[in-house]
């Protein structure tokens, strides 16, 4: 009992940041057909990989979520299903996940705080630019090169080496928010990084429903991004097999 260390249990999963509810969640690219195939493709890829039974455990950045979120927010879905989305209340989707990274906390924090680094491990982000001390501009890729979604975000919490939180500005393509806590792992085992990413599906039944359906895929993507973050910090690169030879035709 003398060796009990309560820091982790005290710090993790305490704070919460919610995306703004501006009612502006929408997507503004592509034709209906392209959007429909995007969703189909994404569903096939991620669902084909294997359904996750445990929904709701994961972490990381807004990147990918936006896509699905954006995609699901688009009206062609409603067209396709013939449903009317007006007048239903909206729900925020939130995913939390943690990983331990075998590097000093200051270094881990600094890498994330340099927001331009995010696309190096968030595969669905194309670009992030710091516009001012608090403000940044984000560009995320849609699957299959259908286009991009963009938004501005503000850092709303910044405690050096400890906590970062950001929130998209009202009027974004996708309302989203993220929060990352950095905690020393017990016994000099590096840094525990806990990320919570949330986004607000577009108002209405179908938006929320489809978002829930895509949640396992989103969760998977967030986990992959966090793992890439760990790989980058611990080894300086993200191991890959993309571009290696095979006998596939």
């Amino acid at each position, binding site marked *: 009992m003398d060796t009990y260390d309560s820091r982790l249990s005290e710090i993790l999963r305490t704070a919460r940041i919610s995306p703004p509810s501006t009612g502006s969640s929408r997507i503004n690219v592509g034709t209906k057909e392209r959007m429909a195939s995007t969703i189909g493709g994404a569903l096939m890829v991620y669902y084909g990989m*294997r359904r996750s039974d445990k929904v709701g455990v994961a972490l990381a950045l807004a990147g990918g979520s936006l896509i699905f979120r954006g995609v699901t927010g688009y009206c062609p879905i409603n067209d396709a299903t013939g449903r009317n989305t007006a007048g239903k209340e909206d729900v925020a989707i939130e995913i939390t996940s943690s990983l331990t990274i*075998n590097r000093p906390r200051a270094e881990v924090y600094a890498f994330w705080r340099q927001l331009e680094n995010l696309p190096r491990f968030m595969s669905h982000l194309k670009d992030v630019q710091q516009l001012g001390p608090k403000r940044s501009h984000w560009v995320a890729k849609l699957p299959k090169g259908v286009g991009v979604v963009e938004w501005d975000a503000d850092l709303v919490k910044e405690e050096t080496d400890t906590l970062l939180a950001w929130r998209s500005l009202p009027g974004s393509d996708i309302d989203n928010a993220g929060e990352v806590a950095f905690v020393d792992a017990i016994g000099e085992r590096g840094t525990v990084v806990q990320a919570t990413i949330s986004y607000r599906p577009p108002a209405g039944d179908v938006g929320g429903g489809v978002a829930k359906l895509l949640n396992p895929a989103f969760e998977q993507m967030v986990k*992959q991004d966090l793992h890439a973050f760990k790989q980058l910090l611990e080894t*300086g690169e993200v*191991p890959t*097999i993309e*571009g*290696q030879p095979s*006998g596939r035709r």
Partner: protein
Amino acid sequence: MKALCWNGVNDLRVERVPDPSILNPKDAIVRVTMSSVCGSDLHLLDGYVPTMKAGDIIGHEFIGEVVETGSGVKKFKKGDRVVVCSIIGCGGCAHCLDNDWSLCDNSNTKPEYLDKAFGYATAGIFGYSHAFGGYAGSHAEYIRVPFADQGAFKVPEGLPDESLVFVSDAFPTGFMAADMCGIEPGDTVAVWGCGGVGQMAIRSAYLLGAGRVIAIDRFEDRLQTAKEQGKAEVLNYEKVDVLEALKEMTGGRGPDRCIDAVGLEAHTTGVEEYYDKVKQTLRIETGRPAVLRQAIMACRKGGTLSIVGVYGGLLDKFPMGPAMNKALTFRMGQQHGQRYIPELLDIVAQGKVDPSYILTHKWTLDQGPEGYQMFKKKTDNCMRVVFTP
């Protein structure tokens, strides 16, 4: 280049594929000069390792020459002759730093699969399915070696590929099997399986101080090799009751340490075989744990079971009662080659062990499919066939 590709269960073909290139700074490209089959490949051939994709290049036990290095490779230059560990470790995660390289957090490019199947994903392995990272294997003219500074080792000069290639996989695996036993002077070590891995485990057990090694298999040629090259006493499990024989040979005490160098495709006879085969075919269990069952029963009270034979998923009729009540210790794992290879290269250079005796056939890569058939069916006394591109 030419490469041996997996195209489906028991369907291997030599194909033309593009040459590999550097994809990350810590990659090196190695021109393969010799690449060996391994018992682990049989699990791929037989379809017990899911997530293989048609076109995957297999092979993971190899030696060659560095022909290109990424900007992050510090230890090697063009022309260096290297043996490469079959399992990929990053060198930067907590497990690699603990010297438990096959548990690497970072080298598996697709951790999501094993995260679900095993709870936490383990390291990437060359040519060993997408669950283990999907890396292209070594039965090819060239191979890309990620984290080359960690996984590749310059070999001592003046020794042939034949003596060095097994320092990639079979030797460190056998050595780790013996190491995990925690052998005390005079211990009797029983080794199930006299393939390349078992043979290396036998030699390693003596290197680590065993008083006696008893080797178990059914192939007379392999038992003969264990006897002649490994100074093992041998048991043919088709001819004797292994449990009775081991008990008798150890004065009623049982072997102190038991090594499983067979794994999930253990061969058995009678009702047990029928039971496991049916269940395995229906995928109700994913391994046939005949050796494990036997080793648990055979092991002395308070003894150690060291498992390097590969298992993939679920086992049935696992004798937990005997294991618990006899207070056995279980040690197991994929090999942590990076931990052992420098020491093993010394052992080979000093002539203490020349692993080349497990090499029975030296063929060309074009003969890959036939080579695997021979290795699988253990015809022509094949222990290990190696390919030269």
